[in-house]
């Protein structure tokens, strides 16, 4: 009874603290990510320290080349400097920088397509195709032991850092261009026709690359993550 009263009291005083924060227009200190950025004169070097690693990882995932990723990050900061905005919170600042970075990445793709052909012809050697029977009565069927297994704890996996590391490592195994395409379509949600225009590839090529990517990724995650869950 006393416990209930105390927890009720605590809840009430938390609520009052929140209310006070809103009135005083200060941010609640509960989430470090939302602490106001350094005050004082505009300091772009702080951006590099606070956001450099994340932007680099983001760019590397799509461009698959550390030098290109560094260039994209540098260009992003330079462009952001011209923009000269200030933000109420680190998350908003990061979102804005990521927006600029995305465009720099797309610029890189446009430039790259003029230099080399984009389709990964080597990847057409279909390793994943070995999961299907080549002949006999059930031609084209899954070879039983290699067919998709039941996955347990799918939703819980999304909360695991190790799961995301596995996902990342599996997509890192994909050939460079296929990985870029996969990221543009699945992570960024870019429309098929826009990807084709950006990379100067045909829709047919794109679909084959995505099919191979999805199949390889699914297989890799099954072996390296889901088969170990229980």
């Amino acid at each position, binding site marked *: 009874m006393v416990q209930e009263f105390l927890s009720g009291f605590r809840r009430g005083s938390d609520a009052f603290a929140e209310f006070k924060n809103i009135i005083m227009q200060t941010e609640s200190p509960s989430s470090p990510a939302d602490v106001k950025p350094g005050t004082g004169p505009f300091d772009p070097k702080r951006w590099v320290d606070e956001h450099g690693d994340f932007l680099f990882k983001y760019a590397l995932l799509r461009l698959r080349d550390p030098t290109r990723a*560094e260039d994209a990050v540098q260009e992003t900061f*330079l462009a952001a400097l011209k923009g000269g905005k200030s933000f109420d919170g680190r998350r908003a600042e990061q979102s804005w920088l990521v927006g600029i970075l995305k465009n720099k990445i797309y610029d890189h793709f446009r430039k790259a397509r003029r230099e080399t052909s984009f389709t990964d012809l080597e990847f057409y050697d279909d390793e994943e195709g070995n999961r299907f029977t080549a002949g006999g009565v059930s031609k084209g069927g899954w070879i039983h032991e290699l*067919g998709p297994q039941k996955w347990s704890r799918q939703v819980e996996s999304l909360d695991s850092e190790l799961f995301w590391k596995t996902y990342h490592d599996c997509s890192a195994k994909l050939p460079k261009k296929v990985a870029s395409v996969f990221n543009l379509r699945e*992570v960024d949600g870019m429309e098929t026709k826009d990807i084709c225009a950006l990379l100067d590839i045909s829709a047919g090529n794109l679909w084959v690359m995505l099919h191979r990517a999805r199949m390889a990724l699914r297989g890799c*995650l099954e072996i390296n993550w889901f088969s170990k869950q229980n």
Partner: protein
Amino acid sequence: MNFWRKLISGCEALSLDCCTASRAQSERLDHPLPRAKRVGLWLHLAICKWCRRYGKQIRFLREAAHEHPEELAKAAPQNLSVEARDRIKRRLSENN
């Protein structure tokens, strides 16, 4: 009797095999399938639990990546090198 036989062989003809079905399930995520393929896929999925699983799993992976781009990016082990970091800071100072 003849009618049923014809119906079944018609379904068999239209139905896809697993290899083609997995390709169709992937393509379905990117563009609408032509009708014949759509029907063939539907017929195949009605009887093939492996392919049903396959479709669910690739959809799960797509949603996971799409809803959690930050977690995926953060999972990359590489960081901006010290050298690159300094270089960028210098460029920013020059341009400020």
